[in-house]
C-alpha cells in the first residue's frame, strides 16, 4: 500500500501500547480493532458490518495448532462487541464447503454447515457473511458500511467514480456488482480477488466496503485510510457541488422543538395502529438540511440505500408535505393523519402487487421514519433505544444520498452497474416483495430510473430488501467484476447437482438466518 497522507476526517485511535499488551491474544486484538472501528458512526452504522481474523489455536482433539476463523456473531455490534461475541470456526472445514456447493439456487443450504464447523465449545451463531470472511485470502478482513463508501456503492455513476477515486489516490479498489449476502457472494469475492492480486479492497455495489490486511494493525489502517480517503473524495465533490438536494425549500423554524412536542402525541398515536411505538426526535443539522430541501419528498419516495438501513427504516420514510410558512400546527396534525392513511394504503398495494404465496404475511404497515419540513426527523421503535437507532440509520441514509448527490456528474448510465444482469434496460422492473423473513435478505431491484423522475432521482440506485424466487435464479447469471484497469470475463459457479444429498441435517434451530427456508427448499427439491 503506498504511503498515504494524514487522515483528514477520521482519527487513528490505535494505541500501540494497548495492542502490545494483547500481542499473543488474537481474539482480544480482533475485539480491540472492532471496538475502535465501531466507535465512529462514520465508519459503520450501529450493528452493521463485520470483522474477522484468522489465527491459530490449539485443537482440543489433537493439541496441535489449527487455523480458525473468528468472525463477528450474527446480530452483534462491532462497537460494543466482546470476545464472547465472536463465532470461532475451523477454517479448513469452511474451505471444504466449496466442494459441497451446488450453485446459487441452493446457497441457503450452506448456512447449516456453519454450526458444524464451530471450534471447541463456541456456540455463537455465525454471521451470514462467515463464508466471505473465510474465502478472502487475508488474515484480517473488515466489512463495513461507511456512509461515504455506500454513497459510492449506491450511486448510478458509482463504478466510474471508483475508477476516479483509484486514480486520484493511487489505490486499487475493485468494484463488484450487487450480490445478495450469502455463499454465492463469498465465492464471487474469492474469485474476484484471485483475478486481481493487487486489489486493496472491494466496493460491493449497493452494499458496502471490504478491506483487509495481513496484521490487525494493517487491516485497521487500510480500513480507516480507505474510508477517510473516500470521505475526502466525497467532500471535494460536495464543495464543488454547492447546495445539495436541490437547495433549501424552507428554513427550520425557531419554535420547532415546541411544535414537535405539540404534534408528537398525534404522530405517535397515528403510527401505533399495529404496535405502540416510542418516538425519537432530532433536529440536527444534517437531518434538517435534507428534510428542508427541495428534493426531500421525491428522494424519500425512493427508499433506503442498503440492507442494514432497510431493516430499521422500512421501505421508505413518510414525508409530511407541511408548509411551515403558510400552515399552523393544527393543520399539521390533520396532514399527519392523512399522510399515514396514504402511506399504509401504498404499502399494502406494494405488498399485494409483489407477494407470492411464499411471502410472509403483511404485518405492520406504518412507517418508522417521519420527515416534517421545518421541524426535522422523527424515528420510531418499540423502545427508546430502538427509536434513537432508527433515526441514526436514516441519518446514515441521508449521508449516503448527500454523497451520491455530490458525486453526480450528468445523466445516469443506461444500465446501473450495481445490477448483475446487464441486459436490463434503463427502466428496472420491480420484481419481488421486500418483506423480511427469518432475517434473510431477498432481492428486489428498485425503480431507480423512472423516466419521469428528476435528475435527482436518477442519481441514486436505492434499492430495498431483495426477494428472489427459486425459479428465477436457478441458472446463475454471468457476473462481472469491474476493476479500474481491466475487464474480467466471468465463469459460472453453478455445478451439476449430485444425486445424493448429505444425509446429516443439523437439528440446531437457533440460527436466525435462512435455516428454515433452506430446509424447505431442500425438501421441495428432493
Amino acid at each position: 500500500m503506498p504511503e498515504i497522507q494524514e487522515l483528514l476526517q477520521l482519527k487513528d485511535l490505535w494505541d500501540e501500547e494497548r495492542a502490545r499488551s494483547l500481542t499473543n491474544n488474537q481474539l482480544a486484538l480482533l475485539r480491540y480493532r472492532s471496538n475502535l472501528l465501531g466507535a465512529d458512526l462514520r465508519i459503520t452504522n450501529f450493528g452493521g458490518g463485520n470483522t474477522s481474523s484468522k489465527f491459530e489455536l490449539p485443537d482440543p482433539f489433537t493439541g496441535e495448532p489449527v487455523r480458525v476463523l473468528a468472525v463477528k456473531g450474527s446480530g452483534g455490534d462491532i462497537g460494543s462487541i466482546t470476545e464472547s461475541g465472536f463465532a470461532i470456526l475451523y477454517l479448513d472445514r469452511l474451505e471444504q464447503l466449496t466442494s459441497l456447493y451446488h450453485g446459487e439456487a441452493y446457497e441457503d443450504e450452506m448456512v447449516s454447515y456453519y454450526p458444524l464447523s464451530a471450534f471447541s465449545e463456541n456456540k455463537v451463531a455465525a454471521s451470514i457473511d462467515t463464508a466471505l470472511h473465510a474465502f478472502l485470502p487475508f488474515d484480517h478482513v473488515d466489512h463495513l458500511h461507511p456512509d461515504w463508501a455506500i454513497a459510492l456503492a449506491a450511486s448510478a455513476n458509482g463504478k466510474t467514480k471508483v475508477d476516479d477515486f483509484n486514480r486520484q489516490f493511487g489505490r486499487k479498489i475493485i468494484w463488484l456488482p450487487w450480490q445478495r449476502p450469502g455463499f454465492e457472494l463469498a465465492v464471487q469475492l474469492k474469485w474476484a480477488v484471485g483475478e486481481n492480486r493487487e486489489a486493496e479492497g472491494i466496493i460491493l455495489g449497493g452494499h458496502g466496503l471490504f478491506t483487509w490486511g495481513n496484521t490487525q494493525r494493517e487491516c485497521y489502517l487500510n480500513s480507516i485510510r480507505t474510508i477517510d480517503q473516500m470521505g475526502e473524495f466525497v467532500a471535494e465533490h460536495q464543495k464543488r457541488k454547492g447546495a445539495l438536494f436541490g437547495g433549501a425549500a424552507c428554513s427550520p423554524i425557531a419554535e420547532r422543538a415546541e411544535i414537535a412536542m405539540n404534534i408528537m402525541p398525534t404522530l405517535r398515536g397515528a403510527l401505533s395502529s399495529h404496535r405502540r411505538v416510542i418516538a425519537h426526535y432530532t433536529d440536527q443539522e444534517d437531518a434538517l438540511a435534507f428534510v428542508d430541501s427541495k428534493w426531500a419528498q421525491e428522494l424519500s419516495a425512493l427508499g433506503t440505500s442498503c440492507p442494514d438501513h432497510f431493516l430499521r427504516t422500512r421501505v421508505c420514510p413518510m414525508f409530511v408535505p407541511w408548509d411551515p410558512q403558510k400552515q399552523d400546527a393544527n393543520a399539521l396534525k390533520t396532514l399527519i393523519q392523512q399522510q399515514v392513511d396514504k402511506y399504509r394504503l401504498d404499502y399494502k398495494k406494494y405488498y399485494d402487487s409483489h407477494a407470492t404465496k411464499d411471502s410472509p404475511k403483511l404485518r405492520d404497515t406504518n412507517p418508522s421514519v417521519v420527515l416534517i419540513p421545518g421541524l426535522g426527523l422523527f424515528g420510531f421503535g418499540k423502545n427508546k433505544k430502538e427509536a434513537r437507532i432508527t433515526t441514526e440509520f436514516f441519518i446514515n441514509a441521508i449521508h449516503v444520498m448527500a454523497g451520491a448527490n455530490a458525486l453526480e456528474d450528468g445523466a445516469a448510465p443506461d444500465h446501473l452497474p450495481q445490477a448483475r444482469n446487464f441486459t436490463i434496460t434503463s427502466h428496472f422492473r420491480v420484481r419481488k416483495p421486500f418483506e423480511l423473513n427469518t432475517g434473510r435478505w431477498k432481492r428486489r431491484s428498485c425503480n431507480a430510473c423512472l423516466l419521469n423522475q428528476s435528475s435527482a432521482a436518477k442519481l441514486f440506485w436505492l434499492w430495498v430488501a431483495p426477494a428472489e424466487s427459486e425459479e428465477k435464479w436457478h441458472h446463475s447469471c454471468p457476473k462481472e467484476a469491474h476493476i479500474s484497469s481491466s475487464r474480467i470475463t466471468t465463469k459460472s459457479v453453478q455445478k451439476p447437482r449430485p444425486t445424493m444429498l448429505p444425509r446429516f441435517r443439523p437439528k440446531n434451530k437457533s440460527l436466525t438466518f435462512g435455516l428454515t427456508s433452506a430446509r424447505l427448499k431442500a425438501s421441495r427439491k428432493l
Partner: protein
Amino acid sequence: MVNTAAIYPVPGPDGELTEAQWADTFLLNVTGNYLLASQAEWVFKDQDLPGTIILTGSANAAVPKKGSEAYDTSKAALNHLVRELSIKLAPLVRVNGIAPATVVAGSTMFPRDRVMQSLRKYKIAFSQDESTEMLRSKLADFYAQRTLTKRPVNPQDCANAIAWLSGEQSSKTTGHIIPVDGGLPEAFLR
C-alpha cells in the same frame, strides 16, 4: 400516567397542623391530581389510543382514626376524584387508584423519628442502636398482625397493582380503587 406523589403533613409540637398546612395538603393531594389529569388529557386525546391514569390513595381514606385528619380526608377526597375523573375521561382513558396501607419499608413517610414515635405509642420494645431498617421492620410486623394476611405490605405489592391497572388486563376496570393494605375489614365497604 401514574402518580404516587403526595404529602403527609407533620404536626407541630402541640400535635396540631397550621391552616397553611391544611391548605397545602389539599392543594397537593387533591387539586394537584385534578390538574395532572387535565394536563394529560390533551395528550391522550391527540394520541387517540386507550390509556390509563392511576392515582395513589390510602387505606386512611376509609378507615377513620385520629391524629392525621388532613391527610386522611384529602385521601378520601382523592378517592371520589378517581370516580369522577373516570367519568370525565371515558371512554378513552380509564382512571383508577390504589389504596395502600402502612407501607413502611423504604417509605419517606416513615422517617426514623416517626418510626420511634409509633413504636413507643404501640409499646413495642426497641433500642436506640438498632438500625432504621430494623426499627421499620418491627413496626411493619406490628401493623401486619392487624391485617387479615398478617404480612407486611411493601412497595412491590403496590407496583404489582399499578402494573395490572396500567395494562390491557384491566381493560374493563375504571373508577375503582384497589386496596393494597394486607386485608383491613374496616376498609371493606367504602
